[in-house]
């Protein structure tokens, strides 16, 4: 009787443990599935390479229209509506935020609309290209195209008209090129600042500091603790110390990329120190002794033998840091600001990918689709970095440990 009760209890506990672990797994999968479902539709090369702010062109056509008749090219399908009079085709497309607009899907190389005078800048010209959006046209016969009226209507109205009083087109915009570049800048700048300091600190703690010193042990504990400090506190440090600092020594005024990189450097420094320290710890003392016994100095021993063996560990420190830099948002909101930029200048504000997400979600109409698309990019970059570092570390340890 008692026996069966124990068995039932055991069974119950096993069940609870299994279900609990399943909940975690399910949540992870659900999050990834949501992000991919929401974002994958918006992922495109255009999203990665185009500016956030669209450029709008305001033009007109006042010349005498020739009587050339253009052929609709055979590679265009039925969704493209073609004006044979003007040699231009329209279709409906979704922009980088998922809204539909009228796209110039095709323009003939001899089309009269190819090069048009710029209405806002006397003497300048505007090149109308494929992938621009058509916002509005007013023809000389006073018919008007609005982008919401659809491509078929637009093609018909073009065919009926002989001249254009006003035509407004725009580049696609809402791209994240600027934020990608900012993120790359931040990764490089932060590592340039934090990697040498972190690696040298770890070398001091492990190789040069007195072995059984209490102070060194306390220092090491403190540095380990720093890895767990919420990054928003470092963000305050960035705002309070690094922004005034960079504003004093550079042309910067307010948050800028350099203050952001300095803040990130403070955040990743404990990560680099701790990982490098762990890597140095497992290197056998035999190497150090053999090197010293050969008359090498302490510095030679450290840099030629010890550090060389610790490279896989240091690489994993770099990976962890890059992951931290890409994912950091709270600290950067203070240290750089949240203004999305297309032209990236070191001494000005701009957003990393993570802060870009924050920016587009913070407005009155949060854009889940775009945020998810950027999330996919962040996940992909982290994954690729992970694989690269694993590969290099494997290769290095393979070279040093086996034949």
């Amino acid at each position: 009787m008692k026996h069966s009760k124990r068995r039932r209890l055991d069974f119950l506990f096993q069940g609870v443990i299994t279900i609990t672990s399943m909940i975690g797994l399910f949540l992870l999968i659900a999050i990834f599935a949501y992000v991919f479902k929401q974002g994958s539709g918006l992922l495109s090369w255009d999203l990665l390479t185009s500016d956030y702010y669209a450029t709008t062109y305001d033009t007109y056509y006042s010349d005498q229209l020739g009587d050339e008749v253009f052929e609709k090219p055979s590679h265009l399908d039925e969704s493209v509506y073609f004006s044979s009079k003007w040699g231009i085709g329209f279709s409906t497309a979704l922009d980088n935020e998922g809204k539909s607009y009228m796209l110039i899907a095709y323009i003939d190389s001899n089309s009269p609309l190819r090069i048009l005078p710029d209405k806002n800048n006397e003497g300048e010209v505007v090149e109308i290209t494929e992938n621009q959006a058509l916002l509005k046209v007013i023809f000389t016969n006073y018919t008007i195209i609005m982008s919401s009226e659809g491509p078929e209507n637009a093609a018909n109205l073009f065919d009926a008209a002989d001249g254009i009083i006003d035509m407004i087109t725009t580049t696609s915009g809402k791209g994240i090129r600027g934020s990608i570049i900012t993120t790359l800048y931040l990764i490089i700048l932060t590592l340039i600042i934090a990697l040498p300091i972190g690696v040298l600190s770890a070398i001091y703690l492990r190789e040069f500091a007195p072995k059984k010193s209490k102070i060194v042990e306390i220092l090491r504990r403190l540095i380990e603790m720093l890895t767990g400090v919420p990054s928003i506190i470092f963000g305050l440090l960035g705002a309070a110390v690094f922004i005034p600092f960079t504003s004093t020594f550079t042309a910067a005024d307010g948050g800028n990329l350099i203050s952001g990189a300095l803040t990130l450097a403070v955040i990743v420094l404990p990560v680099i120190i701790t990982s490098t320290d762990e890597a140095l710890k497992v290197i056998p003392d035999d190497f150090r002794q053999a090197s010293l016994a050969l008359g090498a100095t302490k510095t030679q021993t450290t840099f030629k033998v010890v550090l060389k063996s610790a490279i896989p560990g240091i690489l994993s420190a770099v990976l962890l840091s890059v992951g931290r830099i890409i994912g950091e948002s709270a600290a950067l909101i203070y240290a750089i600001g949240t203004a999305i930029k297309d032209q990236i200048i070191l001494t000005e504000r701009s957003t990393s990918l993570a802060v870009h997400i924050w920016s587009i979600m913070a407005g009155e109409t949060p854009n889940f689709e775009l945020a998810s698309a950027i999330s996919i990019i962040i996940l992909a970059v982290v994954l690729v970095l992970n694989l690269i570092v694993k590969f290099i570390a494997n290769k290095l340890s393979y070279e040093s440990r086996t034949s």
Partner: protein
Amino acid sequence: MKTENVFQITNLNLHYGTKQALFDIAMEIPKNQVTALIGPSGCGKSTLLRSLNRMNDLIDNCHVDGLVQYENDDIYDKNYDVINLRTRVGMVFQKPNPFPMSIFDNIAYGPRCQGVKDKKTLNEIVKNALVNSALYDEVKDRLKEAATSLSGGQQQRLCIARAIAMSPEVILMDEPTSALDPIATAKIEELIQELKKDYTIVIVTHNMQQAARISDNTAFFLMGELIEYDKTDLIFSQPSKKQTEDYITGRFG
């Protein structure tokens, strides 16, 4: 026959913290001979060996009193150049410990640290060291391969080659064959006999047969004290102390 001494040790006392490891050691180490240090585990023979190239400096709380003279210079003098001492007094450890680099880089490591950069010179140094350590024929075609790909015995000979590449005067060996099989051990012993012509060798061993086979002088240690130090034949045929006799006849240790 008058022999020249490379090391002259007088009243050497060594403490690890509060524990004394060596008591009033006094001995000379003659040039171009093999001197064996024997004794049971923990008797201080390795400690003595390591005090000859000041490797004990690396151990915290290690405190040395007394005089160790290398070619008439006090090596524990404050102004003595330890780096220079270690280039002239090489060391081979108990466990083969090649660096995680290629065979070539392992041997070139010491000279490179001394600032030798010329490729031709380095090639020559590496070749000579390998030839002198009887390893050249085995590895000449794979100098670029990882040193760790060699067998244990080869690795140990590589470590000897690495020490030879510095062209030292003395080679200290700390139980160099204890991690090796009998065949590899025989090769190392053969090599030691060869090296004796050019180098002074001090070897720590817990293998008494080995000491009897390869050494010219033998020092017997017990609990940090030098019990007896004499020609090897004398120690093994007619020891003057009871403890020595007990040890070499296998009554303890």
